[in-house]
């Protein structure tokens, strides 16, 4: 059976408020942190104070005798290697948080301290200590070569060289990682803050060697993951182990320090030589790239980016391992880094050629369907932003006191196609109530409402007439919410389930309307015979089920997905900044974001997603940097005071345009989670360049990085 999105819609693509909005805003929604089970114990972790060490001994005898202690779990045994500061060594559960911490302070652990390196420079140095027993510090990547870069550089009209870099940054999830774990015999139930209920259940089944059917992961609400919560993780396994030892439910949620230390976005550094012809067409691109994945294996970021049709390319990427927790996926892995480098190069070259940056982009954007989308987005965005009025050559704008205003633009891409794993259960009950249910989770994107919107569209109802449930691992199959693949999977699966359920209902109802099932339509809360006035209200139609209920498990196949979803979203963003050239202070005044995501399911949620992506990246642009102490390897700013995130006063006006041209929407649903956070930093960096005529090569764009660049450039 073939499926297609309706041409005319009454709900899909409209601005629909989230069904769970009131639950969240009123504080009634129970997140993992809010779960309180009978006799629940508090779990806490003792992290290693050393960045690289071997355990000599762990003495927990005193801790075990402390008041209220119900479980002591030694995570690292003597002889085991510690590879980052904060690496969990021992976990404690006790009846109160205070008792748990008191016991934690009573643990005696001895370490054989080994040499560590927490910066790329320290790790790469001749004679640097090995950061782990396994693997070398520097994992060399393969070179990617096309054409003859040296020759093209020699002949080019304009050439630039530059080094561009971004620091490591933390996800800073509002709700930290962790769970509540409860055993009942050999059955384990966890309330976990995760973006993959099924992964967590599978991970824990494996950890305890119990059947998958014995583990249930519940995530009705969660407070952000951004890629950091795909698995049970070390904290999940420890929490469940504590609960097993205690014989009581245990809550183990990381504190802010631990959350900041548990996997971050890798740093990125690229030394680029690039050239364009006199028209601004890129002719050569060379990049020596590196980044640190911590003790992980890859910090890769894509280069060249978006403008990839270059005849001569020479790139190589090394990953430089350091003693910090292996990086966890961070919203649009690699893309913001690649985008920042590439878009900086584009404007640096445009300046050499005295070209308007928009002209430079037009010359180099890819061709084909995505190229058309970019062209149209550029037209819409530059109009909304008033680019023509605001643009001036770099450093040549009007001065107001010590303030210089500048504008910048950036383009980005993302995949975001559906995954043929997801299933959704649709039930129609005799009283007219409808259930849409899946084990998928709502990462904060409005996924629960997606199920309801698609069902409402199919049944001629409104979303709040649908009961949508997500977030229990033993419900209909799903996959992890990553790569912007959730909505393009759950929306098609919902359409399949709802369409099949509706057809089953039509079959039951048709005789009562003296029509054939294929003559029926579901609109405006009614089941009608097409072209007539004969109808039954939704509820009356459902009454004809006569004691039965319709229950359909909507499944996807590659073929169905091909009709309902696509890969490849494109977007662009424009930023306006004010730079105080005496102090290097940067204020982001406005960001215009134009974003394509194929067929829009919920315009309001999409706009929120885009605005949220912009906010996240404004922070990365002007504030965020994770700082590790080189001497001790410990994170120095592991709080929300010095790991700085902006508040309302620090945020720009954000104008969002959801690109809904048929050229895009005809492709079906494409995910939107990652794309809107890719371009912002690059656009802001370019706006600073435009304001001052000086490239600030390293984010965050704080006075510490901006002022020296301005002084060097003779502007300050």
């Amino acid at each position, binding site marked *: 059976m073939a499926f297609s999105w309706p041409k005319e819609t009454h709900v899909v693509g409209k601005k629909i408020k989230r069904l769970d909005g009131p639950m969240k805003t009123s504080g009634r929604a129970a997140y993992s942190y809010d779960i309180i089970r009978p006799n629940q114990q508090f779990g806490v972790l003792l992290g290693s104070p050393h960045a690289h060490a071997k355990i000599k001994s762990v003495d927990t005898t005193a801790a075990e005798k402390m008041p209220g202690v119900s479980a002591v779990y030694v995570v690292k045994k003597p002889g085991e290697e510690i590879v980052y500061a904060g690496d969990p060594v021992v976990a404690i559960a006790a009846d109160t948080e205070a008792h748990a911490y008191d016991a934690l302070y009573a643990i005696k652990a001895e370490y054989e301290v080994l040499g560590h390196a927490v910066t790329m420079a320290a790790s790469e140095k001749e004679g640097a200590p090995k950061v782990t027993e396994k693997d070398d510090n520097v994992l060399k990547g393969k070179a990617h070569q096309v054409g003859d870069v040296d020759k093209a550089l020699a002949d080019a009209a304009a050439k630039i060289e530059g080094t561009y870099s971004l620091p490591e940054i933390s996800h800073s999830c509002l709700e930290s990682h962790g769970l509540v774990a409860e055993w009942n015999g050999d059955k384990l139930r966890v309330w976990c803050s995760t973006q993959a209920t099924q992964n967590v259940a599978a991970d824990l089944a494996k950890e305890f060697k119990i059947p998958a059917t014995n583990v249930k992961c519940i995530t009705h609400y969660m407070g952000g993951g951004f890629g950091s919560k795909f698995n049970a993780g070390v904290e999940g396994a420890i929490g469940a182990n504590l609960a097993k030892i205690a014989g009581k439910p245990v809550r183990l949620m990381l504190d802010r320090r631990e959350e900041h230390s548990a996997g971050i976005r890798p740093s990125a550094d690229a030394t680029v030589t690039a050239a364009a012809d006199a028209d601004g067409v890129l002719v050569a691109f060379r990049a020596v790239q590196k980044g640190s994945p911590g003790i992980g294996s890859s910090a890769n970021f894509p280069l060249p980016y978006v403008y990839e049709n270059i005849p001569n390319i020479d790139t190589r990427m090394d990953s430089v391992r350091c003693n910090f927790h292996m990086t966890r996926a961070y919203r649009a892995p690699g893309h913001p880094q690649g985008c920042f480098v590439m878009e900086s190069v584009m404007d640096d070259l445009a300046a050499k050629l005295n070209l308007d940056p928009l002209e430079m982009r037009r010359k180099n954007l890819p061709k084909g369907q995505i190229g058309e989308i970019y062209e149209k987005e550029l037209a819409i965005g530059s109009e909304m932003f008033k680019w023509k009025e605001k643009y001036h050559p770099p450093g040549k704008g009007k001065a107001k006191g010590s303030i210089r205003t500048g504008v910048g633009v950036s383009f980005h891409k993302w995949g975001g196609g559906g995954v043929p794993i997801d299933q959704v259960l649709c039930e129609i009950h005799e009283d007219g109530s409808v259930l849409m249910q899946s084990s998928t989770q709502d990462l904060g994107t409005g996924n629960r409402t997606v199920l309801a919107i698609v069902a409402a569209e199919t049944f001629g109802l409104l979303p709040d007439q649908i009961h949508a449930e997500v977030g229990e691992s033993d419900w209909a199959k799903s996959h992890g919410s990553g790569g912007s693949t959730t909505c393009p999977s759950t929306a098609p699966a919902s359409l399949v389930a709802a369409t099949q359920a509706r057809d089953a209902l039509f079959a039951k109802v048709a005789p009562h309307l003296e029509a054939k099932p294929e003559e029926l339509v579901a609109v405006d809360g009614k089941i009608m015979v097409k072209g007539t006035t004969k109808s039954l209200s939704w509820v009356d139609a459902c009454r004809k089920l006569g004691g039965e209920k319709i229950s359909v498990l909507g499944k996807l196949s590659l073929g169905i997905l091909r009709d309902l979803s696509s890969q490849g979203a494109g977007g662009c963003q424009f930023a306006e900044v004010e730079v105080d050239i*005496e102090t290097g202070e940067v204020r982001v005044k406005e960001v215009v974001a134009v974003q394509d995501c194929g067929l829009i399911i919920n315009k309001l949620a999409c706009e929120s997603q885009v605005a949220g992506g912009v906010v996240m990246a404004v922070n990365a642009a002007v504030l965020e940097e994770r700082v590790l*102490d080189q*001497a001790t390897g410990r994170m120095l700013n592991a709080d929300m005071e010095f790991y700085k995130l902006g508040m*309302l006063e620090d945020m720009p006006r954000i104008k969002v345009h959801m690109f809904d041209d048929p050229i895009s929407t005809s492709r079906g649903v494409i995910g939107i989670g990652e794309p809107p956070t890719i371009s912002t930093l690059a656009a802001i960096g370019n706006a600073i360049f435009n304001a001052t005529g000086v490239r600030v090569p390293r984010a965050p764009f704080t006075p510490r990085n901006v002022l020296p660049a301005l002084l060097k450039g003779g502007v300050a």
Partner: protein
Amino acid sequence: MISAFTYKSPTTLKDAIASLASEPGKSEVLAGGSDLLALMKDRIATPEVVVNIKSIPNLSGINVAGGKIQIGANTTLTDLIEHAAVKKNLPALVSAARDLGSTQIRNVATVGGNLCQRNRDWYFRNGLNPEVKEELQYSSIFPMEGQVYVHPSTLAPVLIAYGASVTVASGVDAAGKEKTREIPVEKLFQVSDLKGKREVVLAPNEIIVSVNVPVVDGVKAAEIEVRERQSHDWPLVQAAAALTVDASGTITKANVVLGHVAPVPVRASAAEKLLVGKKLDANLATQAGKAASEGAKTTPKNEYKTALVEVAVKRALLGAVGNEYWKGA
């Protein structure tokens, strides 16, 4: 997580002083708690006794009399900002207080607590003291006694510029009445050894009762902070200036004080000397800024702060006389 302690909530100053230990670290004074509780949670402070002073009457509130504004130590920053006489006479103090912390913090944090707070240095707050400290981006450019932290109070530089003093209750006399002493705010600070010796010269059983700011006709003052965040942030550099200018426009007295550049708020004496006897213009302000930054000892991570001192001083001086040139107004 906080370790166990005894909580006392006396209703008289006398009892409060008696409840405090004379050795450092054994007891702590609790007012707004916005600093103390964080220190206790991180076990940087592990007092056996915590003495709440919020139940003592007359420690909060603002009185204007005899050419002075007397600010009770327990006055919250919100109450300070909203006070009419403070707004009228001490605009630079309002500017500093308004930019401090967040609304929630200003609602609980007190003026006395702001002066007695401990430093925010990363190494100190993390309980670390490695031989080599590399991450000095927010640290002192005028290190003192081997210490690289910066004094966190943003009220202190302004209060020093205004010539304010604090009244301190220190012990009880033979008649059972609390003794007080008066300390100029300028003399209130010392370089902490990050152990028993605190950032303030007060004994562990002394309590600030009030801050007293003279109101002098013709004093023009301003305060400038260069920051990373507009909301809730510490300055990278702060400068406060209070100028007395005669009828001819000549500066007769100049107080220029820097914050967030040294372990104590520091007077920019070289800048002050340069200013007195001259008429202020952009050129003189620029020179004063340069003079204020002289002698800085920086590392590659905090070098940028030297340039910020120059700008902040220039702006504080010109801002004091109403020339906010940087805004292009």
